[in-house]
């Protein structure tokens, strides 16, 4: 994590904007951003020819190209065209608007184009990336990056992120991670993996059984339920140092979730002399107050609203599990799922407009989204397998969840409209209970 941050900070310092003024002219203050959530949204066809080598080693060209294509695909906004249809030799293709034959790309169906070039000098790399509007025959964004060869993917991630900001008004999920539980035999440990499925990393090598991971709003900590002999602890992992602190709250824990605004953790705990309740716990392990309480019934899987004032949670007070919203400030409470008799695992979207959850329909669990105000509901996934435990990407465009569609449980990512399902975890064991990190600043 620290390595990432260092690299990222260093990179930001090195970025030179050489087309800032041009961009500003092209997109004034009245720019209308593309609403990719509109049902009529059609993916933008983009051409990405191979990178031009301007000096030094040419061995990393394929890596740069595949990174750029994957980033664009993951965004859910672009349809990457097969660039072989356009060119045989990217070395001979120009990189500036004046040099490019836009008609050729237009004919091939492209509306947008990315041209990249680079040169290396030992461990150093100079990379120039340009994003063009093919129809308007102009450059929309151009950036030069200088850094280490090993950081080349970061440069591309950053550029694609800039493109997303330009097109939609909001950056993508570049640099984010997804924490999850990996079950191998009887051992369940917390891992994290990059947003694009690279770098799976074991975070808790000493755990026997860990459940319910949840990122802190600053990305420094992951809270989870740690099993300690015959007790459960609120365990707080410092992701940087990999140290874990345990707090025993005098009862059995079933789930924990960080508040997205501050260092407060909602913990579902049941103490022998009381009822199941959701309490607030600070980073020192002190209970700051009861959040949801009363009655013998289950209260678990708390998910905070983005403003940290409401909590969606699961209760079985009417029989099967259903999803409720509790307003922490007013103490009012209401049910929001009315279809089906087994609705669990709520996850509030970053913008607050939806709550994703897992609903049992036709004998299988699938991902649904429900509007917390109107309670109108949409089914996101379907099929003859189980999809559970949704978690939103920080930009609200994607949902990660666990699914056994490949035979075992693994973490999958879909766009919010249910398309573009992508397998994130390709590793031994069963991967469950994903938690998408915030953007690391």
């Amino acid at each position, binding site marked *: 994590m620290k390595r990432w941050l260092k690299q990222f900070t260093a990179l930001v310092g090195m970025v030179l904007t050489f087309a800032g003024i041009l961009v500003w002219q092209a997109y004034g203050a009245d720019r209308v951003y593309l609403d990719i959530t509109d049902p009529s949204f059609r993916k933008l066809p983009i051409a990405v020819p191979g990178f031009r080598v301007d000096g030094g080693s040419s061995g990393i060209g394929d890596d740069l190209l595949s990174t750029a294509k994957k980033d664009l695909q993951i965004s859910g906004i672009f349809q990457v065209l097969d660039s072989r249809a356009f060119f045989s030799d990217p070395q001979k293709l120009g990189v500036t608007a004046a040099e490019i034959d836009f008609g050729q790309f237009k004919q091939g169906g492209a509306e947008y184009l990315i041209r990249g070039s680079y040169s290396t000098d030992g461990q150093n790399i100079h990379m120039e990336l340009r994003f063009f509007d093919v129809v308007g025959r102009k450059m929309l964004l151009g950036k030069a990056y200088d850094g280490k060869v090993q950081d080349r993917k970061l440069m591309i991630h950053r550029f694609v992120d800039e493109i997303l900001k330009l097109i939609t008004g909001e950056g993508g999920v570049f640099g984010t991670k997804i924490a999850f539980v990996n079950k191998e035999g009887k051992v369940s440990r917390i891992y994290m993996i990059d947003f694009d499925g690279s770098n799976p990393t074991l975070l808790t090598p000493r755990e026997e*059984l860990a459940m319910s991971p949840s990122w802190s709003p600053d990305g420094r900590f992951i809270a989870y339920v740690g099993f300690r*002999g015959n007790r459960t602890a609120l365990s707080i992992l410092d992701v940087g140092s990999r140290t874990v602190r345990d707090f*025993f709250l005098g009862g059995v824990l079933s789930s924990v979730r960080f508040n997205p605004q501050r260092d407060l953790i909602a913990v579902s705990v*049941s103490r022998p002399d009381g009822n199941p309740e959701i309490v607030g716990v600070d980073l020192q392990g002190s209970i700051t107050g009861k959040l949801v309480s009363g009655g013998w019934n*289950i209260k678990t899987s708390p998910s905070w609203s983005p403003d940290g004032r409401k909590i969606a949670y699961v209760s079985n007070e009417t029989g099967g599990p259903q999803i409720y919203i509790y307003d922490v400030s007013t103490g009012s409470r209401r049910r929001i799922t009315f279809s089906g008799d087994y609705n*669990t695992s709520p996850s509030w979207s970053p913008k607050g407009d939806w709550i994703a959850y897992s609903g049992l329909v036709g004998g299988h669990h699938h991902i649904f989204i429900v509007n917390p105000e109107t309670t109108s509901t949409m089914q996101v996934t379907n099929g003859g397998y189980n999809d559970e435990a949704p978690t939103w990407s920080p930009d609200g465009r994607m949902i990660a969840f666990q699914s056994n569609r490949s035979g075992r449980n693994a973490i999958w990512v879909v766009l919010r409209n249910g398309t573009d399902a992508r397998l994130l975890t390709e590793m031994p064991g069963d991967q469950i209970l994903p938690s998408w990190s915030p953007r690391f600043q």
Partner: protein
Amino acid sequence: MREGKRLVAVIIGMLFVCGLMISCSKKPVQGPPMGPGLAGPGGAGYGTAPGSEAGTDIGSGVLTDEKLRALGITTEEQKREFLKQKEAFENEDIHFDFDSASIREDAKSILLKKAEFLKKYPTLAITIEGHCDERGTSEYNLALGERRAHSAWQYLVNLGIAPNRMQMISYGKERPIATGHDEASWAKNRRAHFVIHF
């Protein structure tokens, strides 16, 4: 037929425990794999936060003669009787209906036997584990398993067992005993399991 099977199971269990007693008597006593306060190398690792409660000592899991004497067991006959009842106590789970934590009729007689055992050996402490079948979702099952353990706990408290003798935990659907994907397996996994601390 069932009685016969049970008898065989009890005998096998007794042999197993006797074997354990013999084979373990020379070994150093080991704690559970993730005991509370387990410190990592170099100080970086797991620690129990100050102020957290000590919890019930779940012991080493090894039944020594010394521990038997502490239970008031001095003769071979008493020992045989204890081991027989201990096996039944730990092997006989109570079962639940799908998505339910209510104590079923068939569980009540089992819990009554467990209460009698706990009254006969009043220094014993136990953990009640709640478990679920694979059909529910992971996190909800952890909560449901807790309700199942709590139902059994409450029933035993009502039968006069001191609450502080019984620890509870839920494993949700993480520790199935039957791995099939059918009602027979699911029914076995929807259970409360009882473990004695030694």
